[in-house]
């Protein structure tokens, strides 16, 4: 048994598996925000490390694609590097760090700052696809809640937050309603990124490998963050300026730079920051 790359099919998955994922992807696009069950395969990276996103990307990739992979907004974080290398190896596709040049972008925890285009696909890695999971641990129950559009529990939870803390205490994976029907988990992106999903020109695909779910938002689709009239949704960020590029409208990382705890703020989207710097 040899272990050369030639032993693997283009983009790693066998054609049978890709067809199964592609059927799920089409249904996901046709029912925006609804979680389509799919027979997730064991991938050569651990569950929880992007196996869903990797399978979705593998089922989508074509030879001419240019792939960008980010984790925490950065192309250079270890897991992003690892996934990018995986696809270079098994699909032989070109890769880039430049958001504008990518045709497929796989992401964990961020949406790029640069506005995406109709010719791009954004693939999200999703750990827990069910937005109601933290309110109701049973899949059998949450499935019924979605079927009946019974989302009262979610509003009660958000309202309880306000009565206890004076704020909705969800800072990331902030629930959204898609196309006025399904409540959806945007994956653990900071809520700062939520507005970018609304009427986004790119196709947004979500893959949750361990939980065996795929969902999607087609281009130009209404994606609204849940809120209340008296407590409107706010896309919050650190009220600081990027110390590298001077941006005042981006999501910032807070970095501790010495033993005294001095902080520095810089763009989490490393490509966006670099493009402004140069």
């Amino acid at each position: 048994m040899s272990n050369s790359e030639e032993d693997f099919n283009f983009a790693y998955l066998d054609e049978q598996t890709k067809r199964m994922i592609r059927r799920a992807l089409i249904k996901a696009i046709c029912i925006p925000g609804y979680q389509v069950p799919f027979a997730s395969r064991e991938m050569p990276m651990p569950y929880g490390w992007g196996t869903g996103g990797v399978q979705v990307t593998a089922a989508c990739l074509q030879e001419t694609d240019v792939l960008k992979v980010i984790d925490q907004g950065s192309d250079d974080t270890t897991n992003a590097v690892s996934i990018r290398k995986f696809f270079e190896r098994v699909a032989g596709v070109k890769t880039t760090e430049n958001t504008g040049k990518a045709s497929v972008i796989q992401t964990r925890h961020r949406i790029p700052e640069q506005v995406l285009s109709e010719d791009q696909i954004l693939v999200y890695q999703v750990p827990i696809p069910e937005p109601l999971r933290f309110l109701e641990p049973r899949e059998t129950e949450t499935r019924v809640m979605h079927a009946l559009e019974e989302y009262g529990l979610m509003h009660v939870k958000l309202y309880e937050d306000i009565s206890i803390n004076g704020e909705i205490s969800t800072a990331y994976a902030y629930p959204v309603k898609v196309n006025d029907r399904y409540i959806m988990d945007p994956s653990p992106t900071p809520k700062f990124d939520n507005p970018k999903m609304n009427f986004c020109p790119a196709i947004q695909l979500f893959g949750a490998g361990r939980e065996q779910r795929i969902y999607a938002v087609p281009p130009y689709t209404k994606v609204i963050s849940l809120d209340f009239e008296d407590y409107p949704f706010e896309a919050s960020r650190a009220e600081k300026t990027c110390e590298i590029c001077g941006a005042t409208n981006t999501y910032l990382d807070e970095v501790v730079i010495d033993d005294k705890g001095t902080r520095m703020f810089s763009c989490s989207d490393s490509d966006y920051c670099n493009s402004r710097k140069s």
Partner: protein
Amino acid sequence: MTNPLPFFQDQSKDAARAFRMALKAMAMPGKIQNFQVIDGLPTPLSIAGATLILVFCDFNTKIFLGETFRNKNVEDWINFYTGAKISGDKNVDFAVGHIQELLPFHEFPIGTDEYPDRSANIVIENTSNDVKSFSINGPGIKETLHVELPEKIIERESAISFPLGIDIFLTKENLVMGLPRTTIVET
């Protein structure tokens, strides 16, 4: 059990390219996408219809064929290259035919409240006949589009309400247009 033989020249790369067209078609309803030209197809299957079958169907898929498509050549071709089962009834994953052979749409699986995805994909072949101008709206459509669609397509609108539904590919030669259940079709 014999594995079906690949029809595409480069099975995985050609299928990937075709899938992206199909995905784009469903993601951006009303916009026409074109598949790569392939030949050696049994009549009356169009290039687009055949490509969609190759991209989505295998031995886990049941296909319904419209009357004019139910001939030995088509059935053998599907069987040989995909292994999909041809079904006599409408309880299928995939249907291919002319529009009048596929009506009424709601007889195909439309999904359930809990699993709206368990519904058929329908390929309406040769859509140039009996078309009419409609305006369409919904996810994937930036601003209202005016497109020529088969007149009877409107029958989908009244029969089933979202999230249940069937999803349609309209084909002609190597061209394909998507009409997911979310698309609102109006005269």
